[in-house]
């Protein structure tokens, strides 16, 4: 099962990487970067499950939590900047 999640995360990362490069609009780029992040988080969380203990390893969970918060902050500021640029364009 873990293999499936690893694979899933891999696909997410690769696909969003492709779209990140291809994307011509900031919005798409932002979305693809966020999805890429989710792929990475998925990888991390799957790692947490890949253990001999009965409970998953809490450390990756905490790290992913941190990662999500960081990603949200970056997204927030990106959104503000893009909106500003769009408004200027009009």
């Amino acid at each position: 099962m873990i293999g499936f999640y690893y694979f899933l995360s891999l696909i997410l990362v690769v696909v969003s990487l492709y779209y990140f490069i291809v994307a011509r609009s900031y919005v798409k780029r932002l979305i693809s970067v966020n999805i890429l992040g989710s792929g990475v988080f998925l990888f991390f969380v799957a790692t947490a499950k890949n253990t001999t203990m009965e409970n998953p390893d809490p450390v990756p969970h905490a790290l992913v939590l941190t990662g999500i918060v960081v990603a949200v902050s970056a997204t927030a500021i990106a959104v503000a900047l893009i909106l500003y640029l769009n408004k200027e364009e009009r």
Partner: protein
Amino acid sequence: MLDFALGIMLLSSALVSLHSKDLMKSGVFFLIFGFLSGLIWVRLEAFDVALVEIILGSAITGFLIFKLVKGSKRRALRVSAFTKAWAGLVSLLFFLFMLFYLPTIERQDRVGRLVYENLHKSGVESAVNAVLLNFRGYDTLLEVGVITLAIFGLLALELKREAYHWDNPLLQSFSKLLLPFIVFFSLYITYLGTFSVGGAFQGGALLAGGLVFFALAKQSLPLKKSLILLFMATGLGFFSLVGLFYALLGYGFLTYPLKLSTLTLIFIELSIWISTAFLLYTAYKGKL
């Protein structure tokens, strides 16, 4: 079975979100992606992550993305075949690379066991929060720093933004009615953090959601701007002050004595709760 279904849904929503020419559709599917990944975290027993993903990763990010999409022109720009080709090549290479990598991962105990062994010394009963607040509290301090930084940065640039709202009485009364509940439950989730799934970020983000809802119904919070600013800075300020305080006392930076750790952590959680809430709220609003 469930995993596969969820996985396929996740993947397809990601693809649609990435590929769709219509930015709005991308936005919607991004939100769906967030929800689904929340469910996936649940399947992976990462409950804390799930909660954060649902509240922050999907809801708050979703709000932001909506707003962004709404403010952007929706025109499809043509991509040259060359770009596609090299992008495809890069991704393919990366894919193959990772494919070779994946088998090298082995099932093993990592730091997890150590966390459970030291849990009783941390002042928190939930393992994830113990890591977050105590074992790797420094990370969390910086994380609070990052989010504070981002939002203050956004304010500092003074980027004027359009406000979206719906001046609807029903909505207004509903959001108003809901707010105390949300405050209550966000605090409850924060409280849960000390022994179960939950925590300050989750609680704060929940409250932020409520506040955004409140603001969207064309109402303004009866709080002074300076007070909101103070709330926003509370998390970082309090956390670093605590760190400094213990350093000055001689315990060491961010080192809590065993007896006081629970109390300290509760106050830290509260401060993070309130600042997260107002930070994310401001992140959505774009101004004070």
